[in-house]
């Protein structure tokens, strides 16, 4: 999804981990090369440490998770946010 004209920190797209469901298989951690996650050895589950490294529109980690322990915002909502931010003329982020 094209969002280059909108600052990444304005787009709430990153994974959320349900530690209850996570079985510590590390698939998500090993798949993501963008260092969104760090492995939390104590709780044996991934921790989102660089949320803005996550590629807007990519939910590969969620797709790989066999336990449905990873969630993302609805893509339609994100598209709406990006559209609104792009249309906003005064552009809070252009100051």
């Amino acid at each position, binding site marked *: 999804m094209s*969002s280059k004209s909108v600052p990444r920190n304005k787009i709430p797209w990153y994974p959320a981990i349900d530690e209850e469901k996570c079985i510590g298989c590390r*698939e998500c951690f090993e*798949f993501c090369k*963008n260092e969104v996650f760090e492995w939390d050895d104590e709780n044996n589950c991934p921790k989102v440490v660089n949320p803005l490294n996550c*590629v807007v*529109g*990519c939910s*590969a980690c969620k*797709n*790989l998770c066999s336990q449905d322990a990873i969630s993302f915002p609805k893509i339609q909502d994100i598209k709406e946010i990006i559209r609104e931010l792009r249309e906003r003329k005064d552009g809070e982020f252009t100051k």
Partner: protein
Amino acid sequence: MNKKPRFIMCICTGQCPGFKSLDLWELINTVRQEMDVEYAIVHPQLCVDDGDRFIKDYIRNDGKYIIGACAPVMQRKMMKDAFTEAGGDFEKQVVPLDLRNLTTEQALAKVREALEIIK
């Protein structure tokens, strides 16, 4: 019927840092001009709904495909059903390549290797 494989480069929206050391156009033009492929194309994101629609529309059940993208486990998970629905078989027809965090030369070497495998 042309038995040459087709090369698809999936570039994950073009914003994934995993591909930042790869010159996409150098890769795709070298593959299509210098390698024994039917042709080489780029798709922005095969693993989401429009990628699904593309595969179902595009896949021939007798074609061979080399797909440069992210991890093969992910490619398999995300595309297997679409291949089946299109009358194909991901396992038999595709050589999936993880081309993230590679230079263009390293990626080209992987494509060459895949061409040997897929023959």
